[in-house]
């Protein structure tokens, strides 16, 4: 489903990723681990073409992502939902409006939006916060809203960049359970994280990056190499 082939990404001559090869199958749950600056976020940015690779090819289904015409980008991005490290919620829209915005983008009419948005909020347990603005939400609530928004477009792949990084442990487990549920419902989930406890508990595929290279790719792996 997703394939990185000999991917190198340089910023001003410094390699953030070098010759990365990675294949992710449909329905997988994958942890991306590694120290800060290892290249996890860069890898995600390349997949949704927020950045272009310096060399190599990235395939999503039959699309070669870096060759994709600009016009097709929205389609790619609707298939790959992202939960950003910094949430990237629309600050001047309420929780329910943040969801509706994405529903609108994917072409749902006002009636459908009215029907779907509360359901999606319920899924992440935010029904009561529907009319609050992002600044009125706690870290965990923001994180769940970000996930809800990513889910609104019914993506085939959900990428979560450090979804537990900015929230307390209890909230973190809520978020993780949510991601697992989404994975069980059939979506591919990629999660970049520093949270060793989560990785060790879930026993899923682990890909470890260091200095822009994949140093470990382990089925049912743990956070630290054993």
């Amino acid at each position, binding site marked *: 489903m997703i394939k990185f082939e000999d991917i190198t990404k340089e910023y001003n001559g410094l390699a953030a990723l070098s010759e990365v090869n990675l294949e992710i199958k449909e329905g997988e749950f994958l942890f991306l681990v590694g120290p800060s600056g290892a290249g996890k976020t860069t890898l995600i940015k390349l997949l*949704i073409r*927020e950045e272009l690779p310096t060399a190599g090819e990235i395939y999503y289904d039959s699309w070669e992502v870096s060759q994709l015409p*600009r*016009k097709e*980008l*929205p*389609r*790619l*991005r*609707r298939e790959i*939902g*992202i939960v*950003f490290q910094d949430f*990237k*919620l*629309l*600050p*001047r829209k309420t929780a329910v409006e943040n969801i509706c*915005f*994405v529903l*609108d*983008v*994917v072409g749902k*009419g*006002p009636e459908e939006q009215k029907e779907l948005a509360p359901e999606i909020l319920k899924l992440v347990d935010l029904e009561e916060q529907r009319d609050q603005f992002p600044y009125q939400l706690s870290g965990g609530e923001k994180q769940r809203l970000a996930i809800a*928004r*990513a889910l609104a*477009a019914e993506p085939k792949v959900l990428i979560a960049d450090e979804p537990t990084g900015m929230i307390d442990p209890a909230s973190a487990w809520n978020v993780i359970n949510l991601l697992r549920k989404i994975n069980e419902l059939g979506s591919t989930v990629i999660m970049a994280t520093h949270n060793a406890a989560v990785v060790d508990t879930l026993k899923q595929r682990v890909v470890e990056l260091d200095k822009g290279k994949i140093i470990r790719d382990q089925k049912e792996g743990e956070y630290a190499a054993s």
Partner: protein
Amino acid sequence: MRLPKIFRTSFEYIRRNKWLTATSLLVMTLTFFLTSIFAVAAFGSSKILKELEHRPQITAYFKDDASEQEVLAVKNTLEQTGLTSSVEYVSKEEALTIFMGLSQEDPALLEGISSNVLPASLEVKAVNLSDLPQLAELLEQEPLLEDLQFYKDVVEKFRRLTAAARLLGFGLVGILSLISLLIVLVTIGMTITTRGEEIEIMRLVGASDGQIRGPFILQGALLGVVSALISVILLCLLLPFLVPYISGALTSIPLPEVSPAFLVGLLVGEAVFGMLIGSFGSWIAVRKYLRV
């Protein structure tokens, strides 16, 4: 995005940037107002020019002893050249009637005046102004001719003046249009900068260029249409004060009426132009934020 939604988003953008919007509205209105003034001036002067062209361009006064037959013979000669559009004979008696009409306010002038004092004349209009010298030459060869008044210079002078004014107007309007475009660019650009993060997020969750650009382009178009509307309303309010002032300066020429049809045409033209400038400006401004 559906149309009502685009409108709603547009109005939201305008509301959040009141002062910037007001500034660009002001500059665009000013541009359109000046355009309107020049358009009215161009419309008026072309009417005046037509009026002047309809007046006799050569008046040939004949000597006292020239008989009506002799003058009519000259008229005939002129008409046979095929260069004239009309040649009119004004007899001594008719000249007196005209003179008395003009001098009614001043009875002293009328004392002791009889038809004998005033000369008979021919009023000549040419089809083409450029043929006037040829006609004048023909008349000057006439031994019965007393005096020749040649209006060509007046018409030509006015024509040149009009052309210069029009050129100046076009230049000025052109420069102002450019300034308007830049102001729209800056306004919308600033609106967009304050929303740059939002645009980026929109792109990342899969909004298409059109979905993002729509409301901004509409905002620019609205700005253009509204300023065109204001400027024409302003013009309509000012015209009644301007017209007497100008007609006071141009005594002998009747000032042409500015018709409602002309004003409507002006409004439509400016609104379309404003819409184009506004949406083009927005399109350019958004373009650079859509790179993600």
